[in-house]
């Protein structure tokens, strides 16, 4: 590839930043349409550039590296602002900028209503600035050519996530709920980032470089114990960013952000950064099966664990959030067991259908808010995200229902929609290397189908259970148009890597190491399809046939187990007890006796001491010239005495 072509990657990263600048400088005069157009065009421009890069890669699949500048030299360590153009990074860039652009367009319509609903239209511009910043940071993350530039993007997306979760920071439970959720996301991610930082430090120490090629080339000869340490610390970073056990707790709370944010950041792109990292670093994981097993187990357990919680949620976005965690578990398990292509494949299809589901859920929420106002209950407390308040929206929002159905079926893994193929590949890989994890994932797939069936029924079928639902109406075309596009992708995304063709695999094998020829196993495919249909059917049996009550239909038969689902297995409570309490107590001790008592009195003592000594010393400064002269004379005599003494 020529240098001019490689330079496009830099422009792709810089374009959203340019959008920010434009919106910052003249955004106030552009109006909402103008702001949205600028931001969407910036993201769309990145998508076009990514597409051009992909076209160029078709000619030269080996890709290339674009070195923009040297960042710093530290001893023998040199870190460059360098970008990597290969099939993996361009695939990620396409997903990020493509889904990102659609969500930008959707947000123009969604935020128009949202800023008015929340009573601050001035924040419209801010939202798009954050969104563009996110796209830029994410593109930097996936196009970086060394771990430090990747880390810059990694932190950048974390920052945007924080800013956007807390977008309505004065809202939420007790006026603090959203701010608290943002803080939680940031702090939990910090724990993960700490792991990634340690991994980076270990790499500097062991390999003396952070460039991907340099690190991976030396990985084969490195001591296994070192690689295990690096990969496990990296895994900690992955569990933070990609919301895996045990650091997943921030993602459900992150739903406090506006719905497009949940779709873009907390479903389609940012949370997949961990998956991308492991896929990119396959060369580090492949020589150490223990680390691979750890990653796989984390993914498998998370997949099942989150799926059970999703069963017990009533908030439409919370269900999707736990579903996201669960699906991320699938991806992490896939990249963990070395099936990186399957993991990336699922990442791509998941980006389509989960973004679709979130955006459609946003459309539902808009419809309900609209219906709520229309019903004349303008200021009553009302939660437009509670599925118990919905029902029967099929007829009132037909387009939303149609795309939601596509997304839900794709997520459930019904053939021939996208989710079926990608999930199937993961299951095949798992059945070959990790039978137990295969069982976990199969159970998670079953639960996925079940809770999506439950959600479909609760939201769209039956009779409206509130006035708001009764008066709900279809959203504007600006909102539904991206949904249709995403629905098409969700339906046809499986074509990317059809069995027998393996086009994605042949595409990615230029940049991923250890790609094995994938194959199609009829037994697994039919089994997973059967499981999906079984889950949906069971959901129909449980929820579809009778009118839902306040209590969930599963609550009685499952008893305390369902209570555990509903209460999210008490993970938050457990963390509060085990981590937050002792830390709070420690902070109290440090703040009270140690800081106020010891350190503060130390400072006070120093101040008083210098005041006292100053009071005493100022007597020397008596203004009498002769006594100064006397002091000088005494000094002369003393010096003379010293000279006599040493001679």
């Amino acid at each position, binding site marked *: 590839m020529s240098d001019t072509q490689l330079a496009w990657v830099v422009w792709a990263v810089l374009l959203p930043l340019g959008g920010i600048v434009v919106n910052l400088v003249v955004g106030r005069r552009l109006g909402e349409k103008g702001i949205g157009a600028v931001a969407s065009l910036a993201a769309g421009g990145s998508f076009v550039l990514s597409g051009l890069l992909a076209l160029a890669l078709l000619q030269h699949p080996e890709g290339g590296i674009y070195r923009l500048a040297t960042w710093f030299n530290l001893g023998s360590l040199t870190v460059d602002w360098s970008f990597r153009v290969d099939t993996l990074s361009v695939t990620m860039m396409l997903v990020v900028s493509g889904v990102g652009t659609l969500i930008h367009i959707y947000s123009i319509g969604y935020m128009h209503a949202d800023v008015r609903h929340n009573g601050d239209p001035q924040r419209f511009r801010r939202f798009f600035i954050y969104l563009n910043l996110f796209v830029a940071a994410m593109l930097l993350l996936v196009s970086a050519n060394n771990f430090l530039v990747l880390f810059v993007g990694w932190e950048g997306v974390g920052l945007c996530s924080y800013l956007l979760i807390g977008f309505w920071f004065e809202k939420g439970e007790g006026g603090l709920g959203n701010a608290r959720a943002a803080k939680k996301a940031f702090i939990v991610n910090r724990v993960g980032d700490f792991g990634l930082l340690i991994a980076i430090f270990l790499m500097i120490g062991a390999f003396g470089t952070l460039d991907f090629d340099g690190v991976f080339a030396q990985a084969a000869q490195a001591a296994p114990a070192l690689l295990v340490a690096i990969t496990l610390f990296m895994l900690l970073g992955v569990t933070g960013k990609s919301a895996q056990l045990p650091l997943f707790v921030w993602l459900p709370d992150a739903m406090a952000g506006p719905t497009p944010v949940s779709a873009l950041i907390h479903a389609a792109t940012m949370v997949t950064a961990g998956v991308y990292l492991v896929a990119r670093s396959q060369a580090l994981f492949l020589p150490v099966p223990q680390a691979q097993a750890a990653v796989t187990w984390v993914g498998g357990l998370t997949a099942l664990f989150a799926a059970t919680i999703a069963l017990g949620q009533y908030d439409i976005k919370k269900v999707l959030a736990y579903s996201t965690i669960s699906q991320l578990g699938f991806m992490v398990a896939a990249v963990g067991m070395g099936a990186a292509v399957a993991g990336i494949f699922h990442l791509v299809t998941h980006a389509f259908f989960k973004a679709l589901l979130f955006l459609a859920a946003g459309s539902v929420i808009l419809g309900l808010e609209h219906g709520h106002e229309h019903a004349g209950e303008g200021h009553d407390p009302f939660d437009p995200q509670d599925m118990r308040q919905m029902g029967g929206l099929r007829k009132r929002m037909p387009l939303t229902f149609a795309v939601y159905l596509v997304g839900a079926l794709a997520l459930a893994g019904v053939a021939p929609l996208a989710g079926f193929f990608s999930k199937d590949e993961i299951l095949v890989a798992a059945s070959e290397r990790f039978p137990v994890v295969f069982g976990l994932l199969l159970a998670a797939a079953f639960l996925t189908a079940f809770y999506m069936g439950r959600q479909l029924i609760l939201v769209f079928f039956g009779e409206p259970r509130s006035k708001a639902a009764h008066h709900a109406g279809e959203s504007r075309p600006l909102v539904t148009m991206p949904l249709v596009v995403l629905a098409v992708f969700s339906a046809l995304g499986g074509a990317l890597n059809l069995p027998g063709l393996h086009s994605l695999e042949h595409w990615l094998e230029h940049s991923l190491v250890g790609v094995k020829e994938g194959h199609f196993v009829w037994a697994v495919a039919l089994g997973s399809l059967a499981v999906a249909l079984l889950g949906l059917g069971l959901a129909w049996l449980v929820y579809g046939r009778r009118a839902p009550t306040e209590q969930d239909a599963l609550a009685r038969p499952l008893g305390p187990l369902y209570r555990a689902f509903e209460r999210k297995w008490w993970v938050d409570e457990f963390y509060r007890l085990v981590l937050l309490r002792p830390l709070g107590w420690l902070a109290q001790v440090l703040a009270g006796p140690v800081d106020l008592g010891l350190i503060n009195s130390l400072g006070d003592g120093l101040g008083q001491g210098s005041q006292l000594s100053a009071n005493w010393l100022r007597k020397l400064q008596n203004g009498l010239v*002769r006594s100064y002269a006397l002091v000088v004379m005494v000094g002369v005599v003393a010096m003379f005495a010293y000279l006599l003494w040493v001679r």
Partner: protein
Amino acid sequence: MTITYYLALSVILFALGAVGVLVRRNAIVIFMSLELMFNAANLVFVAYAAYYQLINSQLFVFFVMTVAAAEVAVGLALMVAIFRTKHSIDVDQMSALKG
């Protein structure tokens, strides 16, 4: 007759000058004591000039004298200026910089 006598005389003169600076309150007398100390130093120069047969040493006396003349001119002008504002040349009265 050794140079030691001259050195001893010079030191005594110097010490007396120093005592004058330290004990007298009259700024003009303090200046005079200062001149006495210069004089003591000059005496040593001249004595060593004779001892080492070196004319250079005498020239230093010449320079000291000119600088002392300059110093006296400025110093006495200062005295006059101070006397105009404070109506006294008692150095103990000049203690505005008291801490």
